[in-house]
């Protein structure tokens, strides 16, 4: 089953972030708690962890992109 990963709310005050970089590549196995990607918010670089076990399929954003809370970021194939 394909699960969508959406941009979480990382800052109480803002919903617009810079996408930092991918830590996992498409095809990589990911476990719950693994860092998937990094996002730059106003005050920090947030390392966002996977909430699923599976295989990272598609990356929908790239370094430097502006993203909003709720945007589709990736898909994960879950067994």
């Amino acid at each position, binding site marked *: 089953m394909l699960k969508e990963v959406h941009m979480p709310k990382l*800052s109480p005050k*803002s919903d617009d972030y810079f996408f930092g970089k991918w830590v996992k590549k498409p095809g990589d196995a990911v476990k719950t708690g693994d860092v998937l990607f990094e996002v730059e918010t*106003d005050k*920090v670089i*947030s*390392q966002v962890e996977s*909430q699923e076990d599976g295989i990272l399929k598609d990356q929908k954003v790239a370094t430097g992109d502006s993203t909003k809370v709720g945007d589709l970021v990736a898909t994960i194939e879950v067994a």
Partner: protein
Amino acid sequence: MKTEKEEPALKKPDWLKVTYDQKKVDQMNDLLSGLKLNTVCAEANCPNLGECFGSGSASFIILGPNCTRACRFCDIPHGHPKEVDLFEPLRVAQATKKLGLSHVVITSVDRDDLPDLGADQFVRTIKAIKELMPHTTIEVLTPDFQGREDCLDKVIAAGPDVFNHNMETVRRITPKVRNRATYDTSLHVLDYVKQHAPKDMYVKTGIMLGLGEKDEEVYQLMDDLRAIDVDFLTIGQYVQPGPKNYTMREWVPMKRYQKYYKEAMSRGFKFVASSPLVRSSYKAKEELEAVENR
């Protein structure tokens, strides 16, 4: 999805990387909003929010959400203050219980509009926590109460375990970043509390780095604090909340935090936390435990 937007200013250093577990943060947010409570963690957009909320710890900010002062370093909304909520102290105590906190930090916005400047709400909150959670240690992080000793007396008498009031920065920079607060008033607050509090109440303060302060100014501040026997000092990096706030001058290198730690300890502070992500209430529990178990 790709849109034109300005690049972020001054590249963030690697140590600003923090982890974020949305499920845990959501759980905490649900509990807090259910109790209609504000935290300084969320109000000030704290970099450590993910870590602290993830581990079930939070610092409550009472009398908010709006502050009557507009300090240029601060992210807390400046605006028309709300009426004092007399049930807020009880809800803070309930949250302390629900979260099972063994140490709780209570701070507030400035309330220059109130006759008691907010001191009574501190007292009510301390009492409520003591009633509901008698073994929880309590740390207050107070405004300067305009230096008014009657306000300080009230909070001291309520008996928190740690009395914190932040100096924020060195003398020269204080008027540039603080609003209606002076270096000498803050020193007076700390001095008065130290002199009038019971011996087992610790007095604590904190400063930010990256505002353009020089070594000798930081050392002078340490000397001023030790001259009035302040016990704990926290030192952390200022992170500019937005373009309208005071411009951050630099990301202070780790080496300087280590240098200041040594300088501060050699001056006789009982506890010093000096690291970029240190905030006044960050790991406050561990700090108190370290001193008590010595």
